[in-house]
């Protein structure tokens, strides 16, 4: 953790670390501890009266079928988003890696969805898939598919997954392409001399060599799907129909911000905080190992 060679103790490090510590204390610790405190309270929306209820909010939470369902749904959603965006990115990167001239051009053309705000991405997709007006439902009708994500929970889930994955393809593509380009050409050439075709070489040589990237991306993508997709869901389905796209982060927002159930929402925040910390530790340990070696 600490450098073997380091500077001796002095007031300087305190000065250096102070801005971040102050901001963290004021804008993170304080609100977070208030959220923690609020999770033990039952309070009206305006904060005029509150009652200490101990763990009751948590009790209610875990007794709530909708909440338990949201857990499972979040897992399903996250793995599909990660799987879809990583697969597409891997395929594109594998092909782009073969192109010597033009790789940068392709990269430029693929990179930009990363910059699009989730809520904008949501707006674009909901616009394209509007059951009455959208271009896709119009086209889908010709192959006999009736598109109505306002009614059909499966289609709604499909749509948010698509929108979420679309945004993430760019990021995954960058990492995969960089990983592939860092594989020494000699290894691939040796494979070719042994008579392996491009497809075979990919599976036996390239894919195993980039597995650390795959693992890293898996973690990043799941974290992304857990938290950053909030804007997409808010713009596309608002958790519906019949709650079929309500994932955990959306439920925290909806119960707290829309429903004004501050205690219940705070309890959900606390659960999420613990999940985040757990995920962080996993990622941290992994990254740590990489750096040590």
């Amino acid at each position, binding site marked *: 953790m600490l450098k073997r060679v380091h500077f001796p103790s002095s007031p300087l490090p305190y000065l250096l670390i102070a801005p971040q510590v102050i901001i963290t204390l004021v804008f993170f610790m304080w609100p977070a501890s208030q959220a923690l405190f609020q999770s033990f309270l*039952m*309070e*009206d*929306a*305006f*904060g*005029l*009266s*509150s*009652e200490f209820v101990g763990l009751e909010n948590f009790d209610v939470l875990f007794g709530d079928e*909708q909440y338990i369902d949201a857990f499972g749904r979040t897992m399903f959603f996250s793995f599909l988003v990660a799987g879809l965006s990583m697969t597409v990115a891997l395929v594109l990167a594998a092909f782009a890696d073969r192109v010597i001239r033009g790789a940068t051009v392709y990269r430029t053309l693929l990179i930009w969805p990363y910059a699009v705000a989730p809520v904008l991405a949501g707006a674009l997709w909901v616009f394209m898939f*509007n*059951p*009455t*007006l959208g271009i896709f439902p119009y086209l889908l009708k010709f192959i006999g598919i009736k598109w*109505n994500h*306002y*009614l*059909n*929970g499966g289609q709604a889930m499909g749509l948010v997954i698509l929108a979420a994955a679309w945004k993430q393809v760019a990021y995954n593509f960058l990492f995969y392409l960089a990983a592939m380009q860092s594989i020494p050409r000699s290894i691939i050439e040796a494979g070719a001399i042994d008579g392996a075709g491009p497809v075979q070489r990919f599976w036996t040589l390239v894919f195993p060599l980039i597995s650390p990237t795959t693992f890293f991306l898996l973690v990043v993508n799941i974290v992304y799907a857990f938290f950053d997709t909030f804007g997409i869901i808010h713009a596309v389905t*608002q958790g*519906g*129909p*019949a*709650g079929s796209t309500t994932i955990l982060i959306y439920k925290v927002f*909806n*119960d707290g*911000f*829309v*429903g*004004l*159930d501050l205690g*219940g929402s705070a309890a959900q925040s606390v659960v999420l905080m613990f999940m985040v910390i757990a995920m962080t530790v996993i990622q941290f340990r992994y990254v740590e190992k990489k750096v040590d070696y």
Partner: protein
Amino acid sequence: MKSRMIKYLVAATLAGVSSSALAITEVQWWHAMGGTNGERVNKISADFNASQSDYKIVPVYKGNYTETMTASIAAFRAGQQPHLVQVFEVGTATMMSAKGAIYPVEQLMENAGESLDKSAYLPAVISYYQTSDGELLSMPFNSSTPVLWYNKDALDKAGAAVPTTWDEVKSASQKLVDSGMECGFSFGWQSWVNVENYSAWHNLELGTKENGYTGFDTELTFNNSKVTAHLDRIADMSDGNLFVYGGRRGDSLPMFTNGKCGMWMNSSAYYGGIKSQAKFTFGQTMLPLDTTVASEAQNSIIGGATLWALAGHEDEEYKGLAKFLTYLSSPEVQAWWHQETGYVPITTAAYDLSKSQGFYEQNPGTDTAIKQLSLNVPTANSRGLRFGNFVQIRDVINEEMEALWEGSKTASEAMDAAVKRGNTLLRKFERSAK
């Protein structure tokens, strides 16, 4: 505060320290009216500001109804609340129970010396926002009620008459589909239209304690056989596309305006939108009657929003606010607002003025909403709803109704679940609102 002070300083410097610039009292009004209705809100404010020189109403658009309400509550908790905020009707119980946070409009007007004649307001509008003792808590502003919109050209082509009962809705839908339309009818704001208003229209109770008016210990009862039979009938009509579900709120509007569905049940306030988009002759009529439940319709209940004054400001500012509210409910402003937007006129004077201006003759059907609201003297079942956490409860009802349309639940399963989940939310509210 700091930024406001800086603003004052800048304003003072720019105005060459002219005293008149500083004497104006500003009154903040947060509202949820985007688009053309937002323009109208701005016009009302600007007209008021031009009509006198002591007060200035500052309208601020704060997003949709939920965002506006949450933003004001958050602002109140932080001591930064606006003077006036537009809250939709389902937020009524939440606002009402926040005794220290709101400034009841009746009191406000009295303290400011402005007259308020409650009998001038339409009973169906005002009763939604009165306490059980009759005190008016918030100022009605944009109220609407669901009506049946129809595509006249399509009905004529299909050889169907404008339906007045649910049986006729079904046969008309069948004819529409037979004549080549993609769907017979659809609706938006489904809980409001097909549970809340269906109950009021047929004089059915939605919950105990007079729909919550007489106590927070109310319980929901809309899982009765009449409501479920009604919903089951709609669900059955999905076969053959007599009914097609098109989403919450107004998401299904394009289905109607693009000529895919021949009939659409939703707020009368879509008048402006339909008028600008529909390329066919359209009309509006009263909600259909369910003859198996009642032989005559009661009255429908309103939706839309009212204006709540929030506590914690200077008396002088409230005085300006009171003057603005008087201006806002004057017959001229209300008649103009009603005619432009399709919201109902909230006072009888505004209604009479519109009549004498010949508005209803030039625009047949535009008085449907007001006729429907004032069809009968409201009963305990039809004057409105007073359920806490109703924002969430309505979402629950929406969710369960969607499960019904999708076919994963029957109407009684869906409504039982909605009542059970809704009652949990009511109990939660009861505890927090003590």
